[in-house]
């Protein structure tokens, strides 16, 4: 029998947890091995001393269990009770969804109201002719070469039956128009 296995067997024997089969094996080993017998005697002595020592240190020392419990109970009673709402699984789920919805809506409105640019309310100027424009009706608009903004194009037929191509910016402003005979 290996040394560690022998010590396990002796340990089980000392702790009174050895099975009948293991006990037979241990007895056979002890009969044939003098050192094992000596080890058993020494460990038996150590076991007995350890049991007495631990019982003395742990159980025979300090205040009684009842006294400690009473103090703990009083300490617990003195503590102000804090109301904690306990939610079951489905309620917790619903509460989570509701909270998420509220937070989402709040964020949505906050972000949208801050990021939307103010709408420019501007009356579109009336352009009669590309060559015959008057200072009153015409605004100083940026030149088409320098702009890179997205535009919409509209066609317009005047009283004479001429067709005009009108460039309309999406931000409610009107740019210079050009007359095209071909349209």
């Amino acid at each position, binding site marked *: 029998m290996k040394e560690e296995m022998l010590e396990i067997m002796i340990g089980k024997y000392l702790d009174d947890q050895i099975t009948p089969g293991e006990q037979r094996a241990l007895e056979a080993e002890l009969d044939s091995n003098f050192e094992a017998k000596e080890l058993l005697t020494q460990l038996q002595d150590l076991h007995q001393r*350890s049991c007495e*020592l*631990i*019982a003395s*240190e742990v159980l025979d020392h300090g205040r009684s*269990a009842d006294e*400690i*419990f009473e*103090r703990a109970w009083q300490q617990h009673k003195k503590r102000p009770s804090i109301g904690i709402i306990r939610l079951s699984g489905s309620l917790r789920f619903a509460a989570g969804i509701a909270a998420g919805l509220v937070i989402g809506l709040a964020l949505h409105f906050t972000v949208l109201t801050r990021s939307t640019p103010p709408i420019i309310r501007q009356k579109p100027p009336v352009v009669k002719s590309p060559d015959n424009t008057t200072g009153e009706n015409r605004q100083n608009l940026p030149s088409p070469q320098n702009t890179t903004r997205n535009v919409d194009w509209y066609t317009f037929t005047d009283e004479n039956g001429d067709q005009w191509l009108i460039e309309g910016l999406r931000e409610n402003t009107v740019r210079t128009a050009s007359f095209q005979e071909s349209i």
Partner: protein
Amino acid sequence: MKGQEEQSESALVCAAQKGEKEAFRLLLMRNWPWLKALVYSIISNTDSVDDVMQDICVQVIRKVNTLREPACFRPWMAVLARRQALKYRQRKSQRRVISLNNDEVAGQQCDYKAGQLLDNLELREQYQQVLQAVKSLPEIYRQVFILAHLEDLKYAQVAEILDVPVTTVQIRLVRARRMIFNQIKDKEKNEV
């Protein structure tokens, strides 16, 4: 028998969850020896064990409602006790209250024990040697050794308390015994 015991313990846990004081008392009294041994194995100081035990009682009373399975009361309480003991030990080490070294503490405790148990000086020295050897064990071995040497505590119960397999308990116990045995032998040799 064990099943009946578990069942009654579960019933006590349910009663305790309803706030019955007597149920708390019975639960704690039933588990008191191993609980105290576990705390002692962590803090290694008999004078402070009572304070930690009181903290554990308070925690059990306050938190028993968080226990979902009453059958798991022992492992749950063991975790709680271990946490409280470690917290206490950490607090102590931070405050540096303990100025005595282990040898002096062991000597004082043996003085107490000697007065109670022994008159023989030689035997007293032997007990002191064992106590010092137990205290010098690594924590995992010390826990197993102390719990296993308490009355009526089987390997399976130690395994349940420490949340380890039974074979681990056996191996740790053998190694702890061997370490204590070697330490005592070495001391004896040095003295000779």
